[in-house]
């Protein structure tokens, strides 16, 4: 197991030393600034109006969800951009050769790198997620319902994308890997929204299409479960909100996502173990 920790450590250190994580944090800070300004303006606007606390809460909670959704999207993009190169690139450049000839089994290399990335993503999400919640609380006093569960689900969604970049990275070049994973992410995005829309349109075909997309790449359904967990019944009942509880992914869907992640990582390890380097 020692090899796993050494590889996880070097991957973590790489994340800290390369500019991409810091750039992503700057991007997160910028978005946070915009989010804070929007929240503040909204509060100011509400002060001048007589409105029911019920509607006011729903709007503010909806805005918090926009902030958290942005946080989630950034984290997924960061996950994909930082990890598409880690296996494919090192095979392409030959960097992997000096590592794979050390007394470390290949599965340990893959698993170690994977854990290093999970740690980086978990840290990144923790910072941006906590900051978003803090801004919402400071400006409006609104808090999410189950913040820890929401956090874990967002990290879970990122880790699914990570497993895919590892899987395709053992087969394809960095570029192809990126195109494939971003493409699948797009499918998941589309699937999630189709399922959401189906709550209004009642079309069986749209539901089927949405479910099929979520089976192909369940990342977005994990986010929608997170959105459900993060909102109170009251906040989620706002029917025109894109985060409304109209189609909540079941625990079975979460189980499927976990199995999907395990299979993707398993196949990545299996293929990396067998392939020529």
């Amino acid at each position, binding site marked *: 197991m020692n090899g796993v920790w050494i590889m996880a450590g070097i991957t973590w250190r790489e994340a800290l030393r390369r500019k991409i994580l810091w750039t992503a944090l700057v991007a997160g800070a910028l978005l946070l600034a915009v989010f804070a300004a929007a929240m503040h303006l909204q509060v100011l606007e509400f002060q001048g109006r007589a409105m029911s606390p019920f509607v006011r809460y729903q709007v503010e909670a909806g805005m918090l969800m926009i902030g958290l959704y942005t946080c989630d999207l950034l984290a997924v993009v960061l996950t994909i951009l930082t990890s598409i190169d880690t296996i494919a690139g090192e095979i392409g450049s030959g*960097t992997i050769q000096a590592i794979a000839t050390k007394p470390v089994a290949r599965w340990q290399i893959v698993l170690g790198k994977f854990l290093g990335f999970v740690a980086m993503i978990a840290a990144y999400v923790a910072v941006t997620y906590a900051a978003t919640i803090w801004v919402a609380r400071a400006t409006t006093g609104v808090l999410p319902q189950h913040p820890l569960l929401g956090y874990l689900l967002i990290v879970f969604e990122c880790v699914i994308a990570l497993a895919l970049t590892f899987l395709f990275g053992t087969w394809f070049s960095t570029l192809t890997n990126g195109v494939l994973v971003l493409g699948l992410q797009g499918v998941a995005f589309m699937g999630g929204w189709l399922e959401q829309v189906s709550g209004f349109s009642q079309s069986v075909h749209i539901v089927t299409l949405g479910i099929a997309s979520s089976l192909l790449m369940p990342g977005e359904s994990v986010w929608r479960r997170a959105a459900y967990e993060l909102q109170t019944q009251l906040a989620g009942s706002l029917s025109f909100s894109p985060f409304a509880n109209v189609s909540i992914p079941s625990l079975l869907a979460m189980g499927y996502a976990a199995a999907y992640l395990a299979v993707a990582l398993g196949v990545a390890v299996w293929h990396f173990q067998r392939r020529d380097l």
Partner: protein
Amino acid sequence: MTASADFAIETHNLRKAFGPQVAVRDLSFVVPRGEIFGFLGPNGAGKSTSIKMLLGLVRPTSGSATVLGAPLGDVEVRRRIGFLPEDFRFYEWLTATELVRFHGRLAGMSAGRLRTRVPEVIDMVGLASHRDRKLRGFSKGMLQRIGLAQAIVHEPELVFLDEPTSGLDPMGRRMVRDILRAERDRGATVFLNSHLLSEIEVTCDRVAFIKDGAIATVRELGAGWQDEVRVAVRADGVTDAAVSGLSRWTTWARLDGPELRFGASSEQVLPEVVRHLVGAGADIFQVTLDRMSLEDVFVQLVGEDRGL
């Protein structure tokens, strides 16, 4: 027959095909322990694929081999193996010390051993003053040196070096040569793949020539390894009869205008040959001894038209 414990590497009919393309056809050879073993061949002969098979990076299609007594792909035996890949590349955001430490840790070295050994080996490759610099700013030659350091940091029993001198200046080459000899003197076996025939000639104890994915010949180097010395004599008045009389000492002889050329198994015959020619009435102005170089052997084996 020597016991297989005396061999660092032993291969039997190793073959590797990538689809329809055969990279290594039939590789069978042994590398005795404690030697510097040269691996030579033209581009595309299968050298890199062969090394990669021995290191477990590439799976052979058929055949078998043992490296330090372990079958190919054995993970534990790699503690005792070092490798400098061709075009060594590594995380450029690491410093020289961090890189060598990382590889030492992967090789299973203890923290205490790393503390003393890492600076020592960086010093050995001549990078002591750059040990805390990031690899990003390193030249190709410096990367090659740090690559060599990571290959020997854990004092392996067997070191594979793929073109270790390709990015180096003459001083760097000499340093590599000295390190390889020091490794051998320590008892390690060195497997050296190089295009630089002169490097192989002065460094290796034995050399294998690979051609079209198979071993063409294996030669022991060192004093008097050549099969033949060639001699050119500039002389006047050499008769055909005098030339035919040379056959007692020479393997072949040819008169080419004022120049007589012949081949012999050893330079020991030269005084006799000169006496014979003078006795037959020739005036001798110059005798030039032309040893057959590794390059000649190489060219003979692969043909003039094949580039290195």
